[in-house]
């Protein structure tokens, strides 16, 4: 249960530089806009993929949505309520690893269900999600003892065990090898199709978005605006090499400044 409405969202950071350099468009002390009047609407249960060049403000927008950061102006409504503080109704999967390095995989996953009364049920649930991301036998490992891909999967298990209304993922597949990436795509799509979870995912991979999303958003320019906001109604699994999807793919590439795709 999570419909999201982003209304006239603006985010500006103070300019930290003390001396104006030649050709510097910003004046010291002035605010630098990162997001400029972003308006978006996501329906309940949608699988949304957000694309955009590095540094354009995607993580910033997600952080405001998650309640970790505040908007300069504008607001974000989740199910009609304005976001003011973090909640565990939606779980955030961080761009850099958000696993707590002093806790084992088990302890990390337990974080989300630590208030469950029935110990047995709790343990079963933790085990179920650890098994799901194929980390059985690694329960007692610390994050630094896992590979990058395994850490990502552990973090995904920690997010899913909470059974959140919505999953917010900031480049969850970055650093994964091809096979793991394919498996994770499938996992996330299944979660969305069979459990009906709302998912909001930032990715740099256009194919990720075209294969997975119900709704893709391309952000760009500085400060960032929405450059493309489109719903995809194609059935899955999808072939993105031909037809409308291929056209859309070229369009998005072009929008991101790549005019020739090999």
């Amino acid at each position, binding site marked *: 249960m999570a419909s999201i409405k982003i209304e006239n969202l603006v985010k500006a950071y103070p300019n930290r530089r003390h001396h104006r350099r030649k050709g510097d468009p910003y004046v010291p002390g002035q605010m630098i806009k990162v997001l400029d009047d972003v308006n978006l609407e996501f329906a309940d249960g949608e699988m949304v993929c957000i694309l955009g060049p590095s540094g354009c403000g995607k993580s910033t927008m997600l952080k405001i949505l*998650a309640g*970790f950061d505040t908007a300069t102006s504008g607001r974000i409504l989740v199910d009609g309520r304005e976001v003011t503080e973090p909640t565990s109704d939606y779980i955030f999967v*961080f761009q850099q690893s958000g696993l707590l390095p*002093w806790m084992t995989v088990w302890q990390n996953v337990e974080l*989300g269900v630590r208030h469950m009364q029935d110990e047995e049920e709790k343990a079963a649930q933790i085990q179920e999600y650890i098994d799901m991301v194929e980390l059985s036998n690694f329960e007692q490992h*610390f994050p630094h003892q896992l590979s990058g891909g395994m850490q990502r999967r552990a973090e995904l298990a920690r997010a899913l065990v*909470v059974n959140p209304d919505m999953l917010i993922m900031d480049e969850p597949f970055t650093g994964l090898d091809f096979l793991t990436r394919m498996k994770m795509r499938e996992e996330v799509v299944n979660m969305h199709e069979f459990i009906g979870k709302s998912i909001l995912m930032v990715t740099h991979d256009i194919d990720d978005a075209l294969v997975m999303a119900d709704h893709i958003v391309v952000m760009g320019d500085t400060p960032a605006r929405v450059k493309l906001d489109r719903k995809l109604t194609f059935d899955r699994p999808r072939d993105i090499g031909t037809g409308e999807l291929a056209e859309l793919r070229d369009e998005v590439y072009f929008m991101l400044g790549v005019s020739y795709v090999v």
Partner: protein
Amino acid sequence: MLRSISEWRGANQLLPAVAFAIVLVLWELVARFSGWSETVFPGPLAVLGSIGEMVENGTLLQHSAASLYRVTVGFYIAALLGIPLGILLGRVALANVILNPLIQFLRPISPLAWIPLAMLWFGIGDKPAIFLIFLSSFFPIVVSTAVAVGAINPIYFQVSANFCLSRKETNLRIVIPAILPDVVTALRISVSIAWLVVVAAEMIAVQSGLGYLILDSRNALRMDYVMVGMIVIGLIGVFLDYVMRRLGRLESTAWARKS
């Protein structure tokens, strides 16, 4: 081929003893041929004899125990008060703004400058010495703890907020484990400072301890006892550092070394 430190150690167990052996030989040579009398510059053999003598009559143990006792008590109090205060400074901005200037002002004042006040306030005996040890460790512990809290990756606080950890849970499950490796390092450094200070403190206000032993032996012109005192101070210092380093290898701080 160049070998690493551990490869050299593995190649020959006696290598670390080389510098000690050279110093011992030079020491003996100077003692014999410099023209100084045995009283002014006793050689290593004479000092070894004195060690045996002092171990046998129990004075060495007694003085070492007295010094270690003071360091332990002063250091514990400093850690017990310093770590929570450091966390407070790192977590609560208002506390930081109010208290930090005072701490930064008091910190550079050498514990030795407090000696006159310490003696006036606490009289003679263990108390002034313990107070000085406390001062010497307290400020480094507070400052390092506060810095460590400030350096915690903000993502961990976002995780804490996302999973709705209470303030208490955040302190116990995020802040304390996150700063533990840095705090252990700070404790290790403070112990060595405390050990430096105890000897100085014992030269003024007490009738026991290794500092007192050195001062008293100088007054009695027993340079061999002075040297025994110095050697034991060095040995105990190495031992304390070893203990603290073992503490740094605890499993709960392993993540900081690997990542």
